[in-house]
């Protein structure tokens, strides 16, 4: 166990070092892609706390992504809230409230029913965003017209991309590292083990005195908060939020990223985000029929490596070590 932990630590440090270097070594567009991927990391980590660790497949996680983005845009437009830290906390708070409400209803069910119920909630939120034009801007969404303060510092004098590629990039990297470490602590805690127990065998977990509904709710809320913070970070990159982020196809994308990287490994979804973003960029520029490739990739993963890329890598590693 210790060995694997140190392996993870090693891997993490290398990854962080590489990510910190990206703005200096990569061409601008790939910095942009990396930044977008970074913002998606809390989203997939949050999703995977629910799916990979608690065994609940949410097909409506776009709801919380959109919630974080709209909270940010709304506060910036209507209350000219400038501090990114405050915006992130506000997004987390709104996700806490909405997650508690939606989660309370959803965790009564598991398996396919849970997936359908979350799907329905995501779509209701989508419809609400479109209908309540005065608050949400309807289908056109809300635009974010100015740059936030980072730790109280004003970088508004920088051109758009310079702002994104320098201060904002490192800010996001910092937040993502903190959130990732925290998530790692949570899933390795007593609580995390209890979640895994619920996923493995909920009847037994209940017989052992774990209040499974309440724990599923905790997991749901944590997941919602993570996803929403990801949305808050993403909002400044897109600087425009629209209802599509709550549509079921966005939720499907979150599921896809997680599966691609592998939900059985803590780091799987993170790999998934990067591979997905790069793959999508590559495929979209290459052929217009990119859905065929994506669909086929999904099938292949499910049939041959349900643990995703991370499982594939571990298999290869074991193969060479064993040989």
């Amino acid at each position, binding site marked *: 166990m210790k060995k694997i932990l140190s392996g993870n630590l090693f891997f993490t440090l290398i990854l962080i070092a590489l990510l910190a270097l990206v703005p200096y070594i990569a*061409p*601008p*567009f790939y910095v*942009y*892609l990396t930044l*977008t991927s970074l913002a998606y990391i809390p989203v997939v980590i949050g999703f995977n706390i629910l799916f990979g660790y608690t065994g609940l497949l949410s097909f409506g996680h776009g709801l919380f992504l959109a919630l974080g983005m709209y909270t940010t845009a709304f506060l910036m437009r209507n209350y000219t809230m400038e501090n990114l830290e405050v915006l992130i906390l506000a997004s987390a708070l709104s996700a806490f409230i909405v997650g508690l409400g939606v989660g309370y209803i959803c965790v009564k069910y598991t398996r396919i029913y849970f997936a359908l119920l979350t799907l329905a909630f995501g779509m209701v939120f989508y419809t609400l965003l*479109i*209908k309540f*034009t005065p608050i949400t*801007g*309807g*289908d*056109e*969404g809300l*635009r974010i*017209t100015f740059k936030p303060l980072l730790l109280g510092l004003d970088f508004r004098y920088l*051109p*758009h*991309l310079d702002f994104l590629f320098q201060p904002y990039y490192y800010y996001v990297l910092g937040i993502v590292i903190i959130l990732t470490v925290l998530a790692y602590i949570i899933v390795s805690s007593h609580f995390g083990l209890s979640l895994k127990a619920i996923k493995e065998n909920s009847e037994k977990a209940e017989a052992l005195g774990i209040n499974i509904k309440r724990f599923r709710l905790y997991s749901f809320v944590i997941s919602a908060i993570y996803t929403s913070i990801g949305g808050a970070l*993403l909002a400044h*990159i*897109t*600087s*425009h*939020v*629209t209802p*599509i*982020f709550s549509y079921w196809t*966005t939720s499907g994308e979150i599921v896809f990223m997680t599966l691609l990287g592998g939900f059985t490994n803590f780091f799987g979804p993170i790999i998934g985000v990067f591979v997905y973003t790069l793959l*999508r*960029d590559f495929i*979209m*520029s290459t052929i*217009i029929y*990119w*859905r065929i490739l994506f669909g086929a990739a999904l099938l292949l993963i499910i049939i041959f490596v349900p643990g995703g890329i991370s499982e594939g890598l571990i298999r290869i590693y074991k193969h060479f070590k064993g040989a």
Partner: protein
Amino acid sequence: MEIGKPKPKKISKEAFPEILKERMSRREALSTGAKIGIAAAIAAIVAGVGGYFGGVSTAPTRVATQTITQPAQTITQEAQTITQTVIKTETLAAQTVTQTITQPAQTITVTQIITGTPAKVPVPSEPLRFGVMGFQTGSFAPASIAGMNAARIWADWVNQAGGILGRKVELIFEDETGPVDVRKERFTKLTVEKKVDAIIGTTATSTGLAFGPLAEQLQQIWISWDATTQQGLEETLPNPTYAFKSINNEAESVAGAVLTARFFPDIRTVAGINDDYSYGRNNLEAFMAILKRFNPKVELVKELWPKPEGTDYTSEIATLKATKADLIHSSFWSGHATIFIRQANAVGLFKDSKAALVTAGGVLPTLKKDFTPEGLLIGCNSWYFLEPRGWPLREAFVNEYVKRYNEFPVYECDHAFFSFQAYKAAVERAYEIKGSWPTKEEIAKQLTQVTVPSLSGYRSFREDHVMLTSFWQGLSKHSPDYDFIILDPVISVPPEKLQPPPGMKFHDWVKTWA
């Protein structure tokens, strides 16, 4: 230095095939019966500006402007005269409005202190690259794909004629599908990775809202075919440098309302079915506002807002039928227009109600005769493929398009063709002034100064970067020559009747209608 000598606007002779060289004088336009001939004589060529540009090109823009004293511009604009003539042809029903816009000769006097002498720099040898964005899939795709096809034809013609100032053009296509962040990602990629000279295209209004600011941030020329909303104009870009936008969304319904008042003067009740997004909502609102100026007793009795991604209107049509309104208004503009007309015709909706389908002409070739009755008011946006008659560019294009794609072209082709034409003319003009290859900013400045031939006649940009165009609308008619409907009579509504002048809010403008 003071230059006030008006000079005819120049279109490069070599850079284009035969048909494009043909310029229609005002008299020719009238005599050939073209519905619109913007016989524009944008005079005003400024030799001294060359020095200004020359100074800019030798050093980075910001540094250069500090050393240059801004030129004082005096723009004298004569009052516009718009003459509308209604000519009655043999058939009484076939009414045609021919109107002529006499555009004033603009005299621009520029006084400028020259700080440097322009150096003639050779034109770069690598091709000019255009990013072309449109929907490859989904319900917006038909319009987008038509525009992209037109872009291909334009590029081939230009390359055959030797390119723009000798530079070949190259198109790089990107999909507009997906959430806004992905679209912005594609835009950024085209700009910073593919290093394209301009991005042309884009169809959805949400794209328009997102790309406007992005184009300014990335200092990338962006000419949109179709993605413009009122909010987009008023809020996101008060003073654009690089973003060029299409005509207002609700222009379709403004024209539709004018023609409704004319073709169906007796209607009293209106029921609207529009997509549940800003485009649809803006359209119904504009339609009713304008229609009421003509006919104050008109009443809106039902508003239906099906979801934009919907493909089945059975329930909505049942409601419309039960409502028994005199007129149905719809701004459906893509595949769903076809579906709506077909389903509505199936239950006999058009037997009881008139209809103003202000944008259905966007998919005109799919409106087959067997399910589209005669007498529906159909709008074709900026261009209808059978008009203007006698306009050689249109004929050549339609023939080429049918030959290549085995279908008839629609309005988006005109927007696309115009966007590319305008870019080309702007480059040539800026080059002529500056004497060397212009920067993006310099090209952008010239985009509002050129008037170019497009499929629908001469077109240009307003000084606030909004397209000027006429709209073609008419009543559906079955013709033995086509398996889909054609429009007869067809009327073109001039640009100043379609959208408020720069800076004016839509509702203030409506009040100015007599």
